[in-house]
């Protein structure tokens, strides 16, 4: 139970820092908010959806996946700053659980993600979004898994690279194709759709859409949970190992 206690300790500290300087939480929801307000109105015509509400029901679930992706992929920069300040090394000379050092930080990212997702969901209701509570909770579970996966991966890479200059191009280089090949902005077709089948986040977007359409039984839902869940487990394992090992 030392692990739980230590994770909670690290989580509390990290949340304190987030609340003390919430500007990043705000910046994190600005992008999806812009898409909601400025891109959304174009969708009804672009998608030839019967109503604006239909367009939003298609668009918002993808937007939430985008939020989960972009909100977590760049958390490694914070870790690099902590490494530089000596905070991580200071933790490492204590007997605190190494796994907790990582889990506490990932939990912080999930917590901020849920708050952001709630905000976007609520803001989309006036535009005609409708969804059942059970479905939205399942969708949030999927988002949470994405958050944990990408935050753990970002932190593990940060520990390896130890420099913003190396992490930034790598993350941007990965983020853009993942976004474009996820079908978040527009429905995919042709060869792009075939390539997108290899993008786990495209599966997540499909599942999220099924959930917001009220079809939790759709096969895309359990498939995405399986794929994302499996990847999350793998990344957690990898990241935990980096935290335990990277001693420099």
């Amino acid at each position, binding site marked *: 139970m030392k692990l739980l206690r230590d994770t909670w300790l690290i989580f509390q500290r990290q949340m304190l*820092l987030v609340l003390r300087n919430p500007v990043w939480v705000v910046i994190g929801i600005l992008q999806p908010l812009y898409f909601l307000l400025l891109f959304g109105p174009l969708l009804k015509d672009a998608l030839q959806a019967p109503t604006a509400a239909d367009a939003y029901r298609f668009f918002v679930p993808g937007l939430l996946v985008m939020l989960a992706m972009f909100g977590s992929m760049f958390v490694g920069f914070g870790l690099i700053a902590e490494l530089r*300040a*000596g*905070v991580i*090394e200071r933790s490492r*000379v*204590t*007997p605190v659980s190494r796994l907790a050092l990582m889990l506490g930080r990932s939990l912080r990212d999930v917590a901020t993600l849920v708050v952001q997702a709630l905000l976007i969901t609520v803001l989309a209701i006036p535009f005609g979004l409708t969804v059942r509570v059970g479905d939205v909770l399942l969708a949030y579970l999927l988002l949470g898994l994405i958050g944990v996966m990408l935050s753990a991966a970002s932190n593990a890479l940060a520990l390896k690279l130890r420099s913003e200059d190396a992490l930034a191009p790598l993350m941007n280089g990965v983020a853009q194709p993942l976004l474009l090949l996820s079908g978040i902005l527009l429905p995919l077709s042709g060869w792009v759709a075939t390539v997108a089948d290899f993008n786990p986040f495209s599966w997540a977007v499909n599942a999220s859409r099924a959930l917001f359409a009220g079809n939790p039984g759709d096969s895309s839902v359990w498939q995405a949970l399986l794929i994302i869940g499996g990847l999350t487990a793998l990344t957690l394992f990898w990241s935990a190992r980096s935290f335990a090992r990277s001693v420099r």
Partner: protein
Amino acid sequence: MIETKGLRKSFRSRQGRETKTVEAVRGVDLFVGEGEIFGFLGPNGAGKTTTLRMLATLIEPDGGEATIAGADLRRNPGEVRRRIGYVAQGGSTWDEVSAREELVLHARMYGIGKAEAQRRAVRALEAFQLTEFADRKCKTYSGGQRRRVDIALGIIHDPKVVFLDEPTTGLDPQSRAHMWDEIRRLRSEGVTVFVTTHYLEEADALCDRLAIMDYGEIVAEGTPDELKRDVAGDVVTVGLNGSTPEAAQLLDSEGYVNKLETVEGGLRLYVDQGSIAIPQILRKIDGAGLHLGTIELHRPSLDDVFLEKTGRSLRES
């Protein structure tokens, strides 16, 4: 309290296509007694930080063994962590939180409960005279204040041994003197202090015993006085008004004079301990009725020791 045998560490670093191996620490044998301030003196790049990081369980040694506060470094690093404190060269505090918050968190990372952690933070803040700005963000502290927070963090769990990596580097003279007082206070509380420095004066004034390190190896070890005595002994320069040859004859046969040189206006005498030799010299010259003009004592510095052992001056490296 600390005993090491053959501690080694090398780093591989890539420069372009070539991989270079740096032997940062090449076989360090040390003994540090309980309750002493032990110093590690050496130029930048000597391997001081690397040795400390190995002893603090932060990096694994390539070879060698160490026992710290009774715990074996290789077999039981967890126990070593519980018994030591470590204060890194580059600091360890976060800009956006206060000293009190840092101290409570750090105590809790050692498994100490919340209430007790808060009590300890209050005590540490008082001991290090940080109470006044305990709740201000760390980024508003001066260099000296921030360094004191680092040290307070390092001993919040009452370790038996604390490693301080260049605790005074970058501090102004007043903060440095203040820091020396803090370190001496730790010793008076029974903590064994292992401190690194590249300042000669600091090693001389602060440390009970010290090891001089260069290129990953210990080149000399002992109390500052022992080290200096081993090198050259003291030099006494006597200024005489005219009667130099007589005085030279007189003093050359004295047992405590190791070597005697005639210089302009007087004599230079090499002796083991100037403080004992000077009264005897005075008596001898007076007794012979010779006229003594001046007398001067030069004690070798740690830099002379460094020069003798490495062929370089520490001030220049």
